[in-house]
């Protein structure tokens, strides 16, 4: 109901003067079956993309998501985002400190980190360096918008736009001053994002999404680490991932196919 009310308000704003230009005695409507209905569909997506906007860390995540669309507007999503091989941390050098860049894809520090560290002899807070390794969580997706467009007025495209919010748990780690990976704990991670899926076929869509994963990082550098002060730093860490996904849609309403000879 709230959606409807919101739509009506927006519609009134948008239509105010367009409507007045029409004949007062008639209205024309197009009521059209959606070409790409997602109601009751199960959507299996694979996605990947970089994190953006973080000054000192840069990650590349990939993952899987399974969405069940209760209707055209709401879906429940189970997703897994990974930036590191799960359940294996690499070879342990000293207690809780691991070597193994090969099992971590795109988990790195930026040039800015090197500048701060090496050129300016400064140190970002350790909490600023904590990175998600694997995240598993559940989201609620809300798609109030369905759009279509003409590309150079010659071909038609369709998409639906959504916002998503949810939470889950994620493993985190950071690379300490000995350049070894150190577990920084498992956290509850809340996330919020928005995106859209461009329908290529009834069973296939390309999905683009921006999603922010936030957690309250609390990082204590291992005492054995060179130069470690054993200090604890805390910070709300936000990692914004931009991902591109391929979605495969199953089940749901099949278009009514009245077989016709022509």
């Amino acid at each position, binding site marked *: 109901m709230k*959606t*409807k009310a*919101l*739509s*009506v308000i*927006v*519609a009134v*704003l*948008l*239509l*105010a*003067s*367009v409507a007045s230009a029409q004949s007062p005695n008639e209205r024309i409507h197009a009521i059209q079956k959606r070409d790409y209905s997602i109601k009751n569909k199960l959507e299996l997506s694979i996605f990947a*993309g*970089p*994190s*953006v*906007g973080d*000054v000192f860390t*840069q990650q*590349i995540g990939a993952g899987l998501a399974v969405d069940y669309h209760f209707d*055209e*507007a709401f879906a429940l999503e189970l997703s897994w985002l990974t930036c590191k091989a799960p359940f294996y941390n690499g070879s342990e050098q000293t207690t809780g400190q691991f070597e193994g860049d090969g099992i971590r894809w795109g988990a790195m520090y*930026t*040039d*800015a980190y090197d*500048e*701060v560290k090496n*050129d*300016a*002899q*400064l*140190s*970002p*807070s350790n909490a600023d360096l904590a990175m998600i390794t694997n995240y598993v969580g559940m989201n609620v997706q809300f798609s*109030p*918008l*369905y*759009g*279509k*467009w*003409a*590309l*150079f*007025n*010659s*071909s*038609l*495209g*369709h998409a639906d*736009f959504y916002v998503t919010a949810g939470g889950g748990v994620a493993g985190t780690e950071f690379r300490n001053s000995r350049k070894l990976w150190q577990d920084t704990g498992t956290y509850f991670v809340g996330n919020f994002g928005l995106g859209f899926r*461009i*329908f*290529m076929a009834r069973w296939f869509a*390309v999905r*683009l999404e921006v999603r922010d994963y936030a957690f309250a990082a609390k990082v204590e550098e291992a005492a054995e680490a060179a130069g470690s002060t054993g200090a604890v730093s805390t910070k709300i860490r936000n990692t914004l991932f*931009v991902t*591109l996904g391929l979605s495969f849609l199953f089940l749901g309403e099949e278009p009514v196919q009245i077989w016709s000879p022509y």
Partner: protein
Amino acid sequence: MRYSRLALTFVTICCLMGSAIQSAKADDHVVVADRLYDMAGSLEITLTPTMSIFDKYTKHVAASVGLGYYFNDYLGIEAEGGYAFISGDKKLLDEILRVGVDNVSGIERLPLSDLKHMTWFASGSVILNPLYGKISLSAESDFNFHFYLIAGAGVAGFKYSTLEWPTASEFRKVDKDAGMKPTFHFGGGIRIHFPKGFSLRIELRDQFSYDEYDAQTKSEGGITPTEKKITDFIHITTLRFGVCYSFL
């Protein structure tokens, strides 16, 4: 940061390609006839509040005024000038400076890239509108939009923070003029149409400029700063909300 720009470019290409692949048709028919909103011949003025996002150490809140003309529905040009009301450093820079104050003591010009913040700009752009569409709100009502890409060049004024050291452990930041530099920009956004010639542009734009910067650095345990030249592109990614009015 480079990944984010790549991602943006990649996204744009994917959106365009996706649509084209989906329903490429050979004949020269039109998908929309008698368009409600056609940019052809439109002369428009735009007032744009802007804020920077994804900056490393700087922040900007600006406003600009632009004048655009569209030759047809797909192609337009725009001239724009803006001033940053808020242009300075982010909290992060102060944080890391405070933590490592001993290590940078005596350094006047920090050896960090992307330290420069823009104070004003003037630019010219070319705008391409490949997509015209409409969006339905909960299958109840709808609005029209154009998706556009923008690219151009111009000039901008920059400043940056230098450090003054009243004592060895106490610093004070002083803004220093970095002069005027040529800038380039690219981006994309959507234009939501309203009746009577009004529209709202929501745009993501990356503005960049080449920078050579004589910074100072200290080696680990060193006392006297040594000179270091930093060459880099200053990137300012902005989120812009332009309110447009078309005269024609």
